[in-house]
């Protein structure tokens, strides 16, 4: 029947036209979820109702940052100078908003002359890298990848 064929062809054409737009919207949403996960650890998963993962990310990153500051680890700033300082800053900034919370909590400054301070520096950097990994995981999950 010519009418049905025409309708099918129109529907197929509409699907082809709409699909890229829908795909682009999903990509933007996934990216926003990834950024949210970076800004607030666990938020990217919470927005997708992955409560266990959200809580685990929030608590592990939070405890690592808190312990890092309590052990007087070095929290790098943008005025690090050398490449390692900049790398440390990027790692620390990976904790998102927790970086600024750590800055506010770190009233005594760092003390890397002792082993605790050195460990604290590693805790802070590990928290940042872990949060970046979690944000990437949330982004991939939002894109529909198996997670």
């Amino acid at each position, binding site marked *: 029947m010519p009418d049905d064929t025409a309708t099918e062809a129109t529907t197929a054409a509409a699907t082809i036209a709409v699909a890229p737009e829908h795909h682009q919207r999903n990509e933007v949403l996934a990216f926003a979820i990834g950024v949210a996960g970076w800004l607030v650890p666990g938020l990217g998963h919470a927005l997708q109702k992955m409560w*266990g*993962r959200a809580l*685990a*990310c929030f608590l*592990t*990153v939070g*405890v*690592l940052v*808190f*312990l890092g*500051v*309590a*052990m*007087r680890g070095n929290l790098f700033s943008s005025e690090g100078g050398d490449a390692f300082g900049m790398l440390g800053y990027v790692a620390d900034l990976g904790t998102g908003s927790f970086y600024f*919370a750590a800055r*506010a*909590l770190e*009233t*005594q400054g760092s003390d890397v002359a002792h*082993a*605790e301070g050195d*460990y604290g520096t*590693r*805790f802070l950097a*590990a928290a940042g890298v*872990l949060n970046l*990994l*979690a944000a990437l*995981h949330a982004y991939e999950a939002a894109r529909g990848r198996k997670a």
Partner: protein
Amino acid sequence: MIAPTDFHLSHFQAMTFFALLISIAFGFLSRRRTNDRLKYIIWSLFLFLLIGVGIGWAMYPFSR
């Protein structure tokens, strides 16, 4: 907000805390079912500690 005070941990305590927290995060991110997560966390924690202590022992002759 509670301001953290000076917090003292031994080398082993710091390593254990670190290993535990990272293992929990990895377990939750990489596994879906509770049982699988638990197994992954325990196994990862065990390997973290084993390899950490192993590297410590391997470095002992060069420590002084």
